[in-house]
């Protein structure tokens, strides 16, 4: 029974993987990856890693993939042209490299002297893979990696915001400036954060230093 389930999920995972690589439309690739992730979660369950399987579905398939969907719809990503700029030989060569790696890895796995690989693992204990065990390890033995991982998340969040913010490049010159109350709380030239990230709009009288073409400058003309 378990073997049947294994083969079914394995085939599903591989199919999803092939779909990610082979499908032309990036949107379809995202959907293929989602199916692959869910199959992988089932494989984790077969290996008695319940918490990780749940985390996989919720975090990976749930959050990360949703992010992907957003970006793919924003960026668009047209169907890729069939002709590769590097030509067919490169494609065949790269597929060959992949195949070579697979052969090497499989040879390593199947030919190893490790006896335990031929079994199903150690006898199952109750509570293996439960959140309790994982949580205990995270807060005792692996506390440092846990904290660093959270720090990494913070950095990634800040980085993403910095990378993707507007820089005033989308405002056309003739656009009317819309003022809000906060504009008066952030005068020009005072080094406010808003000015620093370039989010300020024009104040009346046009004394914005970041304006390349000042509208009316009191200039002494000869």
């Amino acid at each position, binding site marked *: 029974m378990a073997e049947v389930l294994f083969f079914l999920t394995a085939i599903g995972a591989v199919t999803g993987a092939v779909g*990610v690589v082979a499908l032309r439309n990036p949107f379809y690739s995202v959907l293929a990856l989602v199916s*692959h992730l869910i199959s*992988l979660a089932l494989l984790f369950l077969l290996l008695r890693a319940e918490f990780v399987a749940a985390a996989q579905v919720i975090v990976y398939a749930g959050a990360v993939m949703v992010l992907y969907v957003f970006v793919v719809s924003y960026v668009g*990503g047209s169907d890729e042209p069939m002709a590769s700029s590097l030509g067919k030989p490169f494609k065949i060569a790269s597929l060959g490299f992949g195949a070579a790696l697979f052969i090497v890895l499989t040879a390593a796995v199947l030919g190893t002297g490790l006896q335990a690989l031929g079994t199903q693992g150690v006898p199952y204990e109750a509570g293996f893979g439960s959140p309790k065990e994982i949580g205990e*390890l995270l807060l005792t033995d692996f506390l440092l990696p846990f904290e660093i991982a959270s720090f990494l998340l913070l950095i990634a969040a800040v*980085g993403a915001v910095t990378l993707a913010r507007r820089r005033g490049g989308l405002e056309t010159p003739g656009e009317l400036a819309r003022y809000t109350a906060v504009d008066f709380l952030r005068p020009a030239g005072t080094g406010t954060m808003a000015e620093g990230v370039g989010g300020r709009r024009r104040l009346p009288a046009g004394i914005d230093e970041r304006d390349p073409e000042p509208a009316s400058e009191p200039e002494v003309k000869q």
Partner: protein
Amino acid sequence: MNIEWFLTVSALIFCIGAAGVITRRNPLVILLCLELMLNAANLALIAFSRMHGNHDGQVFAVIVMVVAACEVTVGLGVIVAMYRRRVPIDVDELRELQG
């Protein structure tokens, strides 16, 4: 259902993901293939955790998931910034480092 089978499946998925990274031109899809490779590694980790009977592998897999999430975030941010600046979304076009 030996551990070997899981490892073989993991290797297969890893190689498919690697082939995809080399073959595709859209950076979004390349990132997706990168995800595939990470997931294959996760599968191997979980399999070994089952083999040994301790949870180290599973904790490692959770941390890998965190890292993958961060990497996706930043990578997608870069792609969005590229799109905003009218840079072509095609890795073959980005070859200023040639020569």
